[in-house]
């Protein structure tokens, strides 16, 4: 790994200024995505700006119909939060199945959302619940946030500070996990929200996406059987050593049914 400057600012303002001040500088949260990439020399940032000392970014607040989770909350913190488990049990369960215990002890919500790995779990919850991504300079609706492979609507140096999840009536997430890493080969988040039924699919494409056909079918009847015969075309799906595009298309149907059966 190439050496780099290391900063540990104590305010959001300083963190943003430090990243803006050095071309190619990056924020460091839990390091569970960034450090593996740096160790392979696939990223060589000249400076890292640690978020560890920023105040107020590791809180979880449930306020009426919204669960607000700070960007620095670890996956473990979300998985073990009694407040999250009560308001959105599907979200706490999703967090408890990210990677493994050590990854959950370090990895953060903000890092996962900023990184936008195509096989990450949180993006399915953000899109499935219609969450809002809050940053140092504004807000992004999940519907227009995930742009493509590792690509989001964040501007250069924009810092994610929190994600606001609207509490659904019912929701569930089902994933077919990669055997070693636990990343989603396919993960489907189904939610009955105030704005209607939402189905978000991760692991299968370049980024998380919704299935209008599944949403329409589940709006008529919220049963696993309602999804019989509804398929997502394999054309644009990922193919790799783990699964072909056709197998992923098949898994989407299976995981969607499992999620519907598990709604609560």
């Amino acid at each position, binding site marked *: *790994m190439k050496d780099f400057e*290391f900063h540990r600012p104590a305010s959001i303002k300083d963190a943003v200024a430090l990243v803006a001040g050095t071309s190619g500088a990056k924020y460091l949260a839990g390091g569970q995505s960034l*450090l593996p990439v740096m160790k392979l020399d696939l990223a060589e940032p000249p400076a890292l700006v640690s978020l560890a000392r920023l105040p107020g970014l590791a809180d979880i607040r449930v306020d009426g119909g919204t669960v607000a989770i700070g960007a620095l909350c670890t996956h473990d913190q979300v998985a073990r939060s009694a407040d999250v488990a009560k308001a959105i049990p599907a979200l706490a369960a999703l967090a408890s199945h990210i990677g493994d215990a*050590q*990854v959950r002890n370090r990895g953060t919500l903000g890092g996962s959302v900023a990184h936008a790995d195509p096989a990450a779990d949180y993006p399915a919850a953000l899109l499935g619940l219609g969450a809002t991504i809050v940053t140092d300079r504004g807000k992004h609706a999940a519907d227009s946030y995930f742009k493509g492979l590792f690509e989001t609507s964040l501007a250069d140096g924009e810092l994610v500070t929190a994600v606001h999840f609207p509490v659904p009536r019912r929701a569930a997430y089902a994933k077919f996990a990669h055997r070693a890493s636990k990343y989603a080969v396919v993960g489907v988040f189904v939610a009955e929200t105030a704005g209607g039924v939402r189905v978000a699919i991760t692991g299968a494409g370049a980024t998380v996406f919704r299935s209008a056909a599944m949403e329409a079918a589940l709006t008529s009847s919220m049963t696993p059987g309602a999804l019989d015969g509804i398929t997502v075309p394999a054309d644009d799906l990922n193919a790799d050593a783990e699964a072909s595009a056709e197998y992923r298309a098949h898994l989407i149907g299976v995981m969607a049914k499992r999620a519907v059966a598990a709604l609560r």
Partner: protein
Amino acid sequence: MPKLTLSVNGQPRTIDCANATLLVEALREHLGLTGTHVGCDSSQCGACTVHVDGRSVKSCTMLAVEAEGAAITTIEGLAKGNDLHPMQAAFKEHHGLQCGFCTPGMVMSACDLAARNPAPSEGEVRHWLEGNLCRCTGYHNIVKAVRAGAGDMNGGK
């Protein structure tokens, strides 16, 4: 080179190391604590697991500079003189190791679980140890050892 101050197994330590130094390199190469192993160096196997402020982390996937001011516990910090820590004793008793390469990471990971859950079920142990790979044992005796060790740590025996 930046100076880094942290506590390792209860002792204050100062290390001069480059910012790109991983925590596992600081422990093994700067402090000579070679009980923490490097299996994959790619965040998968858990052989490098240590505790940072009581929580299990993969020390090959954390920068040493991020541990500034933190309390680190490694496998060397568990036994009291010749008395094995209850989790170590349980691994010995239940044959939870063969070659022993994965064992320091397994034990550190298991101690984090036992601190949160004094009586983990078999399923809970298996879910918790997903980040620790063993190429020898087939895991059955590791699971037995962790359940027994958790009981002993939490006042059994």
